[in-house]
């Protein structure tokens, strides 16, 4: 395989006694090789990159102004002029979808990152210190887990009031226990390792052990869970907007567009189709990439 020979050549010259086949540079290469082997995950990753580009350069890519109504073209189906048709005010749906990408990505990414940060901290503390601390955090997670995700989010938004920033908080809160649990279990196994005991025997502080030796062990789980949860977060944010608890209906949010189009389902179904399809593809792509990352980051799977 050509990629393989390049990988071998790029590594530092191997000393004769080094037995390990893969050098540190080779590890990143091995990861990419494993990831690229998974066709679906690769396609999904390309789609996600496209989503990021659209989110970053949205305003330059929209064929029409997403907020300008065109009363001569109300609820027109897909055509050469309007690829995804127009909505009930004659606004170009494609432009609105492109504009909404930024909103959707911002909401889902920030909520998952907030969940990851808090969940990881709680999981590390819970797994490392154990005892009542562990019990408190894990029982708290159990309580959050016992609610159906969306119901919990609706409850939180109901308390905090509607609006996108509250949607971020709500989606983040129900993401925290999943991170906390995963990181706790990785921490539990990592703290049993001999090198942690050896480090402790050299007088290292707990904080040092957690940061230097245990946190790096949890990174791959964090990465995989982040990509898995983003799909769920997109869906949850869209659902909340659909229910009128997230984005205002004037904002070009995918969920809100779906909600608005619902009224015209029988006469202009394309208003619902395209936002629905976009949500579906985005969620699917993040889940596929999550699966791909999990397999590629697992040192046990052979390339």
């Amino acid at each position, binding site marked *: 395989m050509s990629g393989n020979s390049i990988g071998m050549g790029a590594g530092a010259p191997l000393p004769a006694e080094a*037995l390990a086949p893969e050098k*540190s540079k080779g590890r990143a290469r091995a990861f990419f090789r494993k990831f690229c082997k998974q066709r679906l995950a690769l396609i999904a990753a390309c789609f996600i990159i496209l989503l990021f580009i659209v989110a970053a350069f949205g305003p330059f890519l929209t064929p029409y102004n997403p907020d300008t109504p065109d009363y001569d073209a109300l609820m027109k189906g897909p055509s050469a002029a309007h690829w995804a048709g127009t909505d009930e005010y004659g606004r170009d749906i494609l432009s609105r979808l492109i504009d909404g990408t930024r909103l959707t990505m911002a909401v889902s990414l920030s909520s998952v990152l907030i969940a990851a940060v808090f969940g990881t901290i709680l999981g590390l503390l819970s797994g490392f210190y154990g005892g009542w601390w562990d019990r408190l955090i894990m029982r708290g997670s159990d309580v959050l887990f016992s609610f159906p995700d969306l119901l919990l989010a609706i409850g939180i938004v109901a308390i905090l009031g509607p609006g996108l920033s509250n949607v971020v908080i709500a989606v983040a809160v129900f993401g925290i226990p999943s991170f906390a649990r995963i990181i706790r279990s990785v921490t539990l196994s990592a703290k049993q390792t*001999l*090198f942690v005991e050896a*480090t402790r025997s050299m*007088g*290292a502080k707990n904080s040092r052990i957690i940061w230097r030796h245990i946190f790096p062990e949890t990174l791959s789980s964090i990465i995989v869970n982040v990509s898995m949860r983003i799909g769920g977060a997109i869906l949850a944010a869209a659902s909340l907007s659909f229910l009128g608890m997230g984005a205002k209906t004037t904002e070009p949010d995918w969920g809100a567009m779906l909600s608005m189009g619902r009224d015209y389902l029988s006469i202009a179904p394309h208003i619902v189709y395209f936002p629905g399809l976009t949500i579906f593809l985005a969620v699917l792509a993040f889940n596929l990439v999550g699966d791909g990352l999990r397999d590629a980051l697992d040192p046990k799977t052979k390339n």
Partner: protein
Amino acid sequence: MTQHLLEVEGLKTEFKRGGGSVTAVAGVDFHIRKGEVLGLVGESGCGKSVTSLSIMRLLKDTPGKITGGSVRFEGTDLTKLSEKDMRRARGNDLAMIFQEPMTSLNPVLRIGLQLTEPIMLHLGYGRKKAREHAIHMLKLVGIPRAEEVIDEYPHQLSGGMRQRVMIAMAMSCNPKLLIADEPTTALDVTIQAQILDLMKRLKEEQEMGMLLITHDLGVVAEMCDRVVVMYAGRVVEEAPVQELFSNPKHPYTKGLIQSVPKLRQKVRRLESIKGNVPDLSQMPPGCKFAARCPFAMEKCVASEPELIPLAGASERKSRCWLTQDEAVEGGDRA
């Protein structure tokens, strides 16, 4: 009496298991002088490693707990130190080498980072000076290409090399006491000899005391000044190394020595001690070795003898009814 470097008195460590608790170390006494190597010998599960972990107070992540006795290091009782003071002592005054060199280094961090961490922590060196010191330590333990090895990952080193790195790490802050928990068990024989030589040399250069935990009597004969034999969480015999081999007192020690294969001895079968160590949760009331002892008497099953200093030699103790009559007249009972 001169103060000993380490004085362990009546050390008792229990493990919680299910509802009850199991005593892994049941009142262990021994001492180590400055510059002395004490061997701690016994078969698997007799409490050797738990004793060493208790001295270092590294039982936090286990269900184990020190429930009695004292561990005095240069006069201060380690069991009473706060966690913060204990942390200051670990790696600085007391250092430890573990049995498995393959897993005692973090595989994802470079050697240098792991080696300089305790140096910066305990000696207060800056990054650059710590690195120089680390390279110096690597050279001291006989690692070739020390300047390169320091930037390599553990998987690039062999087992013997990794154990050298562990020794370098343990020795880097000039500890006064080194606890080596079966440091050569995972290595092959030629490397074992090298590592033992290295430890001996370093010990003499740095004048530190050493607690060498092993079940290899060959290593004991090679390295130790005195030996403590443990059985079922208790010390059963203590003797200077020469006397232990020439004149073992406790039947268990005799059995251990007999079960070492000897050159030029034409026997078909190797002697072995029959039976197994008793289950820690179901200890017999009398001598713990009685069930396996060829000399067991009724008395042995009924009550447990004490560890008593023997007459004739300095620092000889034995826990056996057979040696009670050899006890020092009016000797203090340990």
